[in-house]
């Protein structure tokens, strides 16, 4: 059983968001980088749990990023996983990233490809679906539970206003969110072991990008909160009705 876990590098949620070069580039000054929480907490941990249950499971990690993504991928290796692949590119085009991952996936014939539900920086929620299409596999998005049988997976996923349980034959691509697993902290042994685990760097395949970011904008500053006294709730209702037209 071979599992591929897609790992992306994102700014910590508490980072100050600013832009440079005429609002065309994200200003990385002072930004703390983390593994995208959905990748770290849910998909990676679930893959590790599968391996703990069945030692024949091998876990590959993949990231499409420049050398500055290596601390992130080493941390992911410290949590678990056997080896990592870094595709050397800083593209933010979802199709380009997905196609790079699909290239590697085609070479290695994974049974399961895990992604996070979305990246917390570019918020596409797209890459899992794109990989699935490119490798012609079923795709279960927004999984909240993932269980493996011999050749099939039982997956619970979020749908509009509820949940759906489905059974799907492997290989499958799954995007994970809360529920699939519980966050773990890497231990010393894992950190030491990660130093010697293989991390292969490959150059990107020739793939066209389909989108580019023309510019960024920050939202207009809020006017500030309008406070209403606790004994004058009627005034809040009036404001919401007449001024905000929200009720």
């Amino acid at each position, binding site marked *: 059983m071979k599992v591929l876990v897609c790992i992306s590098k994102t700014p910590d*949620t508490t980072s100050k968001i600013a832009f440079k070069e005429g609002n065309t580039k994200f200003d990385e000054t002072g930004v703390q980088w983390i593994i995208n*929480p*959905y990748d770290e907490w849910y998909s990676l941990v679930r893959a590790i749990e599968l391996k703990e249950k069945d030692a024949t499971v091998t876990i590959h990690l993949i990231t499409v990023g420049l050398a500055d993504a290596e601390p992130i991928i080493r941390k992911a290796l410290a949590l678990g996983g056997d080896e990592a692949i870094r595709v050397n590119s800083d593209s933010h085009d*979802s*199709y380009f990233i*997905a196609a790079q991952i699909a290239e590697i996936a085609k070479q290695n014939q994974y049974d399961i490809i895990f992604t996070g539900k979305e990246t917390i*920086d*570019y*918020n*596409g*929620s*797209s890459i*899992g*679906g*794109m*990989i*699935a*299409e490119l490798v*012609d596999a*079923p*795709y*279960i*998005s*927004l999984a*909240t539970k993932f269980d493996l049988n011999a050749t099939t997976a039982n997956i619970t996923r*979020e*749908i*509009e206003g509820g*949940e*759906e*349980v489905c*059974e*799907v*034959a492997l290989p499958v691509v799954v*995007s994970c969110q*809360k*529920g699939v697993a519980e966050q773990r902290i890497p231990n010393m042994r894992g950190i030491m072991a990660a130093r010697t685990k293989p991390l292969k760097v490959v150059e990107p395949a020739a793939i066209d*990008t*389909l*989108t*580019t*970011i023309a*510019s*960024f*904008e*920050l*939202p207009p500053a*809020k*006017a500030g*909160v*309008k406070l*209403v006294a*606790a004994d004058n*709730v009627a005034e*809040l*209702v009036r404001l919401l*009705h007449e001024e*905000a037209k*929200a*009720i």
Partner: protein
Amino acid sequence: MSVLIFIDQAEGHVKKSSYEALSYGSQVAKQLGVAAEGLVLGTVSDDLSFLGKYGVSKIHQVANEALNTVDTQVYAKAIADAVNASGATVVVLSHNTTGKAVAARVSARLKAGLVAGAIALPDTTNGFVVKKSVFSGKAFANVSITSAIKIISLNPNSFHVVAGEGSATVSPLNIDVTAGKVKVTATNKVSGEVSLTEADIVVSGGRGLKGPENWGILLDLAKELGAATACSRPVGDAHWRPHHEHVGQTGVQIAPNLYIAIGISGAIQHLAGVNRSKVMVVINKDPEAPFFKAADYGIVGDAFEVVPKLTEEIKKMKANS
């Protein structure tokens, strides 16, 4: 050339998010001077010609029962075939749970650039640039699509539904439907409640409500407003409320017209899931709670006193208007 709008249906009825996608797609078509057409997959009980009032002239329908459950692999092929058959150059979907997954697959299948979670009409003065929110609502990116076919998935509640006059012709579309590999074995719908991501108004509670037994006041308010209910992460983690109600960076991201936060401090990870709401109201007894910095309206007070009063006042307001 046309704009093709994917119309999402469940149990034979068109979903609310589709009216928004139709209104948006029709507007894009007007901007480009081309026709707006809809696509329905599966069999429906509604007479689809009424969709004309949202600006589409024609509805393509693949009335195949195999399409009544969503398998993204099957859907992506069907939509891509429909795009090719109709000659569409722009495809619009809703960025809801189905749309997110399907749009991505169609994008890869057609090598058509996707803007996932658009919040405004494209700017077509110089290329094709669509605005979306990034960094969990803390900024926007203007994304230029450079491929010939363009795909937009529209964030729910980011465009006004525009309903006018008109009726659409419904024409069957004959395409091969492949067999899916996903078997749905159970569905748990939270029945009778408003779906969180599609709701206009969301009433949300945090640890300030002290325990699940106190949720009655919040549910009464939600009922009065026809609102969906949500909660902060610790509330979901403690099983005071079902975990699918948890909003924030690690939970559901929403963008309703009105978000009412009760006994929620307003941690940055919470705000990341809700700060795309048009209007935010906070009720918190601590004037220093960070939520007051993000909100539009606020009451510093005890939720147990303020919330029942709020429900009463809304009742009164409705009775008088």
